[in-house]
Structure formats: structure tokens, C-alpha cells
């Protein structure tokens, strides 16, 4: 591994391991007992010789959603941010930048320290929030509403000023339909799941929609049994 990248990984690994994450290659993963989790991926991208460039992607993982993706395979080994219900690509620039840039670029030791500080600061601010969502549909649904309102305010402010407004937008993007579908499913509310997934592109027998309906039916049967 490139020496600068190795040093960067060492710096952020200290915080992530302390928070319960396990690293496999460039991906750090944290899971609770029910299989909900968080994945952080250092995604390399092509760079000039002597430079290392990468993105940092983070995702919050829903156990039922992972079971759909992985079946019998173990998501603790392979789950990635793109399997998440909430995902975010960290911004590598600070609030003084004219436009945000997601590319972390390391060519000196100072770059390593700067990049690690950005990531560690972001983790310190956001890990508690992400962990609070794990296994708690109500908390996720509240966060979805809050983020939607914050986005609307940021959009209005940005359109009025005609300029990029750093720090105004909420971090991350929700797959809110998936959260709602599995929230209804866990309550055994088959009708609500069916309504939520009615407009989904794929509704075949192997689809995510069918999986949510199956869980809803199972939970309903458990309650009635």
C-alpha cells in the first residue's frame, strides 16, 4: 500500500476501531447484534503517479435489507455503502471552498493530516447520529423528515443567493421508501407495505418489494399465531 495512504488509514482506524468498527481491506464495518450496521469505504480512484486519490463513502445498513441482498452470504464481510438506506460521500473541502469537492488527494504528509482531520471530525460529529438510527425505524423516519425540511430551506436560500452555500444541506441521501416499507413490514402491516411499494419499478417475486411484503406477512402471522 502507498505509504501516505497507509498513514491516513492508521489515523482514522484508531477512531473507528475504538467505535467498534472492523476493517477488511479498504472497508470499515460496524454491526449491532441484530445485523444493522454502518459501512465506511475508502474508494480509490485513478490518480497521477506519486499521488493517491480516493472518496470516502459511508452508509447506514438495515438488517432486513441486507438479508435481501446477501441471502445466505455474510454481509459482515461484504456489505458496502451502496447497500445502505442512507449514504453519504464525505466532502474533502472545508466551508471556505467555492464549490465542494469530494476527492481526497494525498501527495504530502500534510495532506494526510488534513484529510484524516476532516474524516475524524466528521465521524465525531456524525457517528452518534448514525448509530442512533440502527434498528430504530422511528428515529430514521424522524431524521428523514428533518433532512427533507433542511434541504428545502437550503434550496430556497441557495436559489435566492445564486451561490453555493456550504454547510446548509443535510449530509447524506435517504432511500426513504425502503425505510418506510421495512418499517411497515416489521409492524406486520401488509396493506401499508403494498401501498408503499406499489409504484416501485420492480415488483416481481424476487424483488425488494416482494421481500418486504413477505416479511410483513410473516410478522402478521406471528402476531396472529
Amino acid at each position, binding site marked *: *500500500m502507498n505509504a501516505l495512504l*497507509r498513514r491516513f*488509514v492508521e489515523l482514522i482506524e484508531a477512531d473507528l476501531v475504538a467505535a467498534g468498527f472492523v476493517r*477488511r481491506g*479498504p472497508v470499515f464495518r460496524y454491526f449491532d447484534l441484530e445485523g444493522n450496521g454502518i459501512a465506511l469505504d475508502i*474508494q*480509490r480512484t*485513478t490518480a497521477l503517479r506519486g499521488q493517491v486519490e480516493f472518496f470516502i463513502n459511508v452508509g447506514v445498513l438495515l438488517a432486513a435489507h441486507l438479508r435481501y441482498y446477501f441471502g445466505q452470504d455474510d454481509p459482515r464481510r461484504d456489505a458496502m455503502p451502496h447497500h445502505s438506506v442512507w449514504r453519504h460521500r464525505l466532502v474533502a473541502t472545508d466551508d471556505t471552498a467555492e464549490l465542494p469537492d469530494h476527492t481526497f488527494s494525498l501527495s504530502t504528509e500534510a495532506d494526510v493530516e488534513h484529510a484524516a482531520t476532516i474524516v475524524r471530525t466528521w465521524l465525531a460529529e456524525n457517528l452518534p447520529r448514525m448509530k442512533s438510527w440502527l434498528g430504530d425505524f422511528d428515529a430514521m423516519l424522524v431524521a428523514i423528515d428533518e433532512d427533507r425540511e433542511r434541504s428545502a430551506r437550503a434550496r430556497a436560500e441557495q436559489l435566492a443567493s445564486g451561490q453555493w452555500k456550504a454547510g446548509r444541506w443535510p449530509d447524506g441521501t435517504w432511500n426513504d421508501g425502503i425505510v418506510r416499507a421495512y418499517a411497515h413490514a416489521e409492524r406486520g402491516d401488509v396493506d401499508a407495505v403494498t401501498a408503499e411499494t406499489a409504484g416501485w419499478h420492480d415488483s416481481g417475486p424476487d424483488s425488494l418489494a416482494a421481500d418486504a411484503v413477505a416479511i410483513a406477512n410473516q410478522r402478521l402471522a406471528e402476531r396472529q399465531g
Partner: protein
Amino acid sequence: MIVGYSGFVIIARTGDTRLDELACVGDLFVAVTDNVRAGGWRIGFLGPVDDTSPDDLANDLALETAAPAIALSVFDSDCAFATAADPSGGAVEFYLNEEIVRTLVDNNDRFEPLNSQAAAGLLAWAEKAGLVASPDRLATALEESPGPFGGGILKFAEALGIAERPG
């Protein structure tokens, strides 16, 4: 602008062992998605990798797996610099899409044509690996680009006799 795949691809026979469980791959700090093929072969896309070359990685793979192995360094999905190695230390250097490689090398004097000699070496490599290669398909596959989703590499592997895993 469409940006293609640039990075390493490896072909190795590891049986039930995932490619990222190999020590020589674990050292590279990569996330590998295995394309599992018949006969215990696996093809893995590693992405950008530092501090190694197709020669070194192919040799490391062959030594660690005790089986012939291949490493390719793909440039922008268009071409690849590659080595097929075997555990006895034999190695065959070749390109995927030699014509593109030729255009990439600024100074034509520095370009080294490999594929006219490599085809025979790759057939011998396949024999050492216990594979039944197709000379015609191999010749065609060597002229193709790796492609954005690695389709050219899968065709190359199939030409060497590394087949899809039976359903």
C-alpha cells in the same frame, strides 16, 4: 466524457478461498468482488493498486496459490499490460489490445511488441494449468479491449479454458 476502468485484474485458481483472503492481495488494500468460475478459478477486479506490477503480482499469486495465475493492469478499459506466471517461475508478458498500447507509447522505439510471441506462451501456460485453451479464440481475445465491465477479460479467460461456473 466516459471514464473507463483503470486498475488491476487478477485470475487465479484458489478453490473455495476468496481472492481477498490471499496474503498477496490483502497487502494491496483493495476490495475485491470475486467472479467465481469453474474448476476453482476466480477473476477479481482490484481497482487502482500501488507498489506492484503485473509481473510481481502474477508471480506472487502463482507462488501463494501453487497454481498458474495472471495479473493485468488495465488502462481506461482500453488495453492491459499483463503477465501470466506459473509457480516454477515461468512468465509470459502480453497485452490485451496491443494496437492501443502501441498508440499510448509516445516514443515508438520504446514500444515492445509482445503478442506475436505471447500466444504460444499462453497456450503453454494453459496446459500447465490443466486447461484446454482455444488458439483461435485466444488470438481474437488478445486483440480485444478489456471493456468497461471486463467483458474482454472474461472472453480472454474463456479462450484460455476458464469456463463459467455451471449453474
